[in-house]
């Protein structure tokens, strides 16, 4: 059958049986709306959590807790368990592993204070835990990508004290060195958790204004002074207490949750200075990046064989939970669509019975069985498309209302997203495809039966 003829037939059907077809399409619209809404909600929540709060294409492995000597062990001279370079190499060879980034924890006490230029008053901590990570790990997420680097890659003139360097610099002079080199402030990354913790817990308690994520840009204008070799808990056994300038250059999920994260070469230098050569390659954990989340299980298995365990499985747990809830809600939508399909089947059964003679006439006038099926299935597809588009529109509307309610009625909470929904084209296309599929499934039986109408009998009135 030619397209123009089909369109003409469909147009006549809509004019004749518009209300019956609209009722049939309503079920499809409701089912599609539910499906699109739930899928968009699942994807939106996943987007809000995964990436912003959790990362799923990587896992951090640390020495098993059983290997920890504990306080008594440490007092007896035992070493804190660490990951040797050979283990890092072994993990890098696991299939699907893109990169292995070792983390090196501070092997020295430290504290920090500053930020007045940006925050209005100095803030600080008398005990600053920290670690070092490979700058390559975070380069893609920072602006500019190279902002997180070892400042001594390009050392300034030789110096013995800060005042001989430019105003924004400091003199980086190790404990046992006679001469240092002028250095730009060491870049520091902080975790988004830390900002959320400050904004939602610390700032209200101290009457401070929340700094927010955007204020990190402001903070980068401020310099902090980090004291190394000494903190509130005491002094390092080796090395001298000295200060260095640091500045926050960005937020990263790769940063230590509560502490400061510095470029790995800087921490290596400081560890060597305060804890000796062995502390330079005694990694506290490794961050393994994989090509996709499905590879993580194998990484964990190999890691267990190497005496490691996952530091945090929340990302995986959250991803599984979101997937399960989305699947459950989608099942509800699938039930709605099945009912809508059954409704369409009923409508088409009635429609084809009431048009039995008309169909027989078409057959007598040259329509083949295929023409009759094509016509009725095209009608069902039109209902599916119209119902599907209406459903998508309804889902977008419901999502907008839900977001507005969340913005205005829900209390503020950490990582509260601007929207709980994500509507990529793939959701629209999938929902539309499912709507058409269910409409066609409902109509296929009646269409086949209509095509097999005995024209001679139907025209004779039988």
């Amino acid at each position, binding site marked *: *059958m*030619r397209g123009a*003829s089909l369109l*003409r*037939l469909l147009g*006549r059907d809509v*004019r*004749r049986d518009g209300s019956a077809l609209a009722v049939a399409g309503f079920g499809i619209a409701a089912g599609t709306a539910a499906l699109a809404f739930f899928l968009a909600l699942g994807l939106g929540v996943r987007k809000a959590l995964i990436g912003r709060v959790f990362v799923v294409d990587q896992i951090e492995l640390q020495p098993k807790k059983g290997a920890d000597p504990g306080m008594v062990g440490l007092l007896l001279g035992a070493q804190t368990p660490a990951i040797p370079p050979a283990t890092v190499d072994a993990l890098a060879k696991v299939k699907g592993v893109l990169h292995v980034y070792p983390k090196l924890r501070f092997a020295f006490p430290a504290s920090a204070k500053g930020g007045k230029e940006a925050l209005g008053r100095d803030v600080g901590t008398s005990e600053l835990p920290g670690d070092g990570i490979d700058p390559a790990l975070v380069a893609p997420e920072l602006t500019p990508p190279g902002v997180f680097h070892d400042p001594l890659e390009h050392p300034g003139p030789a110096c013995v004290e800060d005042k001989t360097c430019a105003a924004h610099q400091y003199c980086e002079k190790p404990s046992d060195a006679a001469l240092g080199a002028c250095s730009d402030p060491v870049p520091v990354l902080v975790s988004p958790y830390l900002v959320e913790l400050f904004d939602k817990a610390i700032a209200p308690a101290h009457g401070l204004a929340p700094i927010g994520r955007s204020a990190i840009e402001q903070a980068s204008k401020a310099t902090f002074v980090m004291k190394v070799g000494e903190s509130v808990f005491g002094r390092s056994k080796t090395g001298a207490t000295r200060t260095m300038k640091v500045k926050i250059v960005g937020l990263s999920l790769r940063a230590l949750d509560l502490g400061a994260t510095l470029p790995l070469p800087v921490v290596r230098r400081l560890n060597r200075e305060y804890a000796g050569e062995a502390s330079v390659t005694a990694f506290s954990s490794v961050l393994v990046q994989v090509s996709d989340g499905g590879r993580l299980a194998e990484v964990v298995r190999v890691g267990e064989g190497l005496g490691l365990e996952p530091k945090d499985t929340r990302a995986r747990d959250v991803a599984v939970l979101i997937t399960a809830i989305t699947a459950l809600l989608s099942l509800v939508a699938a039930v709605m669509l099945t009912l809508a399909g059954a409704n369409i089947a009923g409508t088409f059964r009635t429609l084809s019975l009431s048009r039995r*003679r*008309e169909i027989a*006439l*078409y*057959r*007598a*006038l*040259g*329509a*083949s*069985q*295929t*023409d009759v099926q094509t016509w009725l299935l095209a009608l069902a597809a039109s209902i599916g498309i119209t119902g599907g588009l209406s459903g998508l529109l309804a889902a977008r509307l419901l999502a907008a209302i839900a977001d507005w309610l969340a913005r205005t009625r829900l209390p503020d909470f950490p990582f509260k997203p601007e929207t709980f929904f994500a509507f990529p084209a793939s959701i629209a296309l999938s929902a539309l495809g499912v709507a058409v599929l269910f409409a066609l499934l409902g109509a296929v039986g009646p269409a086949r039966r209509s095509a097999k109408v*005995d*024209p*001679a*009998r139907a*025209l*004779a*009135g039988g």
Partner: protein
Amino acid sequence: MDPVVECRAVSRVFTDGAERRVVLDDVSLTVQAGEMLTIVGASGSGKSTLLAALGGLDRDYTGEVRLFGRDLAKEPDPALSRFRGRSVGFVFQSFHLLPHLTAIENVLVPALFGDAIDDAERHAAEALARVGLGGREHDRTEALSGGQRQRVAIARALLAKPPLLLCDEPTGNLDSETAASILALFLELHRAGDTTFVIATHDEHIAEAASRAVVLREGRLQET
């Protein structure tokens, strides 16, 4: 040249549970091009069943039906449907017009299926004019009289200019005056072209006017 219609030993049996009813019994019939043949018989004699078999609407018969040399029983449905749309026009006793359409839209229904008909709208208007309904193209068929409706049905049958018209009691629902005008129309159409007519009727006026008549009695055919 092949005959237009060639029927050989055609039998058609309807079964309803254990009941078996022979409606056509060993019917053989040949119709040559340009003939106007009437099949006369009482109600229930099998006239409509025979026409349905000749038009390929019913193929559950035994024997052989050939139309323009083609064995209808052996044609696959799409090919048969296309062939029927192109070669056979049907006129029914109860018109079978679609009440939600206008006269010209009804005439154009065959153009929806099968091969495209060039300039179909113009042909449809011409067909309506030919049956005396010029100017009534956009009237709803509900607004037309019985005779006018049958004329619309005839115009619809003529749209694709088929070489064979199968008419099943075309005047059965019409009063005698209107029936006479329809007969006159058939005769005029027959004279004007080389269309072959096979008309099932119990209207003796049509039988008398036709070039040949056969009688169906209890499923058996007799030449008169």
